[in-house]
């Protein structure tokens, strides 16, 4: 773990990604300290352009754009982490089962995953949210469910390749139980692609959250979310461009950081390069 961070810092792309991700996470953690105002507090100065008092201006209702972006980071990170957590943990369980036992278990799991995969992720998330009703919890569930097939497939493919390695046969040949083989010999050996997938998934989870909120089905106003901020600024974009530009920039930079981090992690964790000293 320590080595991975050192490697990341050595890599130019990894460094930028890691710093970006850290900044976003820190902003999310310390939102109440960083934000000058309550994100839902309305000031009489509506659509104020960026000045010293409101460094990113105010929106249509007189709320401070900067404070809303800071609190929006919190929403993005929470949604990203928890939904990827749900998707990853279910995906890893299903993937391990499908890959290790094959046969009918594999068939059932993978056909369900194929069905889930057939829907574009936003459409599927939209469908789930419209059934469950739009709020933070349901947004997280919807995005989590959408991520399950991605993880299941990655994990299953890796399990299949690791399973054919001789050390798995050799573990069986000394009498190790199936569940122990899975946990002790297969899981640790598929972790690298899994971590990469998780990092890249974070960025797309955040993006889906922003899209859902933009469409009005994610985080409900007045709670701040980058997507809903973009939606609110749609009508006043010409009057007050800062209400659109800053949330957009926040989304872009966050997604970019996560993607850069994921890319760099993929290079570092590539098993072909791993054992080179």
């Amino acid at each position: 773990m320590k080595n991975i961070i050192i490697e990341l810092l050595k890599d130019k792309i990894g460094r930028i990604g890691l710093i970006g991700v850290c900044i976003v996470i820190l902003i999310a953690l310390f939102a109440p300290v960083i934000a000058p105002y309550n994100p839902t507090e309305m000031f009489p100065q509506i659509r104020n352009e960026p000045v010293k008092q409101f460094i990113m201006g105010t929106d249509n209702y007189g709320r401070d754009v900067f404070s809303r972006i800071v609190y929006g980071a919190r929403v993005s990170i929470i949604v990203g982490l928890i939904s990827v957590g749900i998707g990853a943990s279910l995906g890893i369980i299903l993937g391990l089962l499908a890959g290790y036992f094959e046969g009918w278990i594999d068939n059932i799991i993978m056909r369900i995953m194929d069905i889930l995969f057939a829907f574009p992720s936003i459409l599927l998330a939209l469908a789930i949210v419209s059934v469950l009703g739009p709020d933070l919890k349901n947004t997280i569930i919807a995005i989590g469910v959408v991520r399950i097939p991605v993880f299941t497939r990655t994990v299953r493919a890796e399990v299949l390749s690791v399973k054919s390695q001789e050390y798995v046969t050799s573990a069986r040949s000394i009498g190790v139980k199936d569940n122990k083989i899975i946990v002790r010999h297969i899981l640790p050996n598929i972790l690298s692609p899994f971590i990469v997938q998780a990092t890249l998934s974070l960025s797309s989870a955040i993006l889906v959250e922003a899209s859902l909120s933009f469409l009005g089905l994610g985080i409900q106003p007045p709670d701040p979310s980058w997507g809903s901020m973009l939606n609110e600024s749609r009508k006043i974009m010409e009057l007050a461009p800062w209400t659109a530009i800053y949330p957009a920039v926040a989304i872009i930079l966050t997604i970019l950081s996560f993607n850069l981090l994921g890319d760099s992690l993929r290079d570092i964790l590539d098993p072909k390069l791993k054992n080179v000293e």
Partner: protein
Amino acid sequence: MEELLKIHDLTIELRTKKARYNLVENIDFTVNEKEAFGIVGESGCGKSITAYSIINLLSTPPLYIKKGSINFKGKELTNLSSKEMRKIRGNEISMIFQEPMTALDPLFTIGEQLKEVMQIHTKLTDKEMDNKVIETLKKVEIPRAEQIVNDYPHQLSGGMLQRVMIAISMINNPKLLIADEPTTALDVTIQAQILDLMNGLKEKFGTSIIMITHDLGVISETCDRVAVFYGGHVVEISDVENIFENSMHPYTLGLVKSVSSLGQKRKELYTIPGVVPTYDQMGIGCRFYDRCVKKMDICKNKVPPLKEYSKGHQCRCWLYEEVN
């Protein structure tokens, strides 16, 4: 000598969606106590799956034991539950593999992997296990055993790793060791060392060995008796001396003839013409029919029986049957 393992009429079937094929058919052989038994044959002749079937390591599906019995110390292995089978694996019967580089988990140290076998089958304390690990590593002639226990597999050479594999398989004093081409992936000098080591261990631990290989040289160096496999049939079983001097089956004759040796000048190495038929092209007769130099009419449509022609020398060929 007492019988340790007796395989009788073993047939292993490959089930595909279209058809079912017998990959090995009517396998019959016996391994005695403290004996090294060789299985020799070309790639794809069924040596490995026969060995894998002994401790039920076949990948099921698509491979199934169709019929036959595998009797180990009076216990029928084909009827064991997977729990009972796990107790035997690595404890009474253990196995070493062809590729030492991939047969060890890259994420655990040598010591941890040696301990894993003991954790499963014994109730030793951590300290006792540590001692036994070092002791066993020394028995397989690994230098600096104390340091190597903390090394990872990628830090060791192939020869070293194969010694570690042997240590893992011997640590619980098994009755039977199955070695699936243990020297194929190693270079010649290391091969000789590993074979010496295994010979020595056989004496020291009183373990029986099943040595699977395609190299008659390995057989002559290590084994007491040998079974020759061809296309999923046992074609000849005999003492090692006999197989070289009095081989009966035309395939064995060809095999012995095609061994190259140093110091002999030959223009061309002898080869058996033709290739092994794939499992879906096997006829109903003798499986060596297409390549045999002494084929007769009867060979085409009828599989010859495996019969004992002189003491301890069995052969499956119509040549030696009274014409019927």
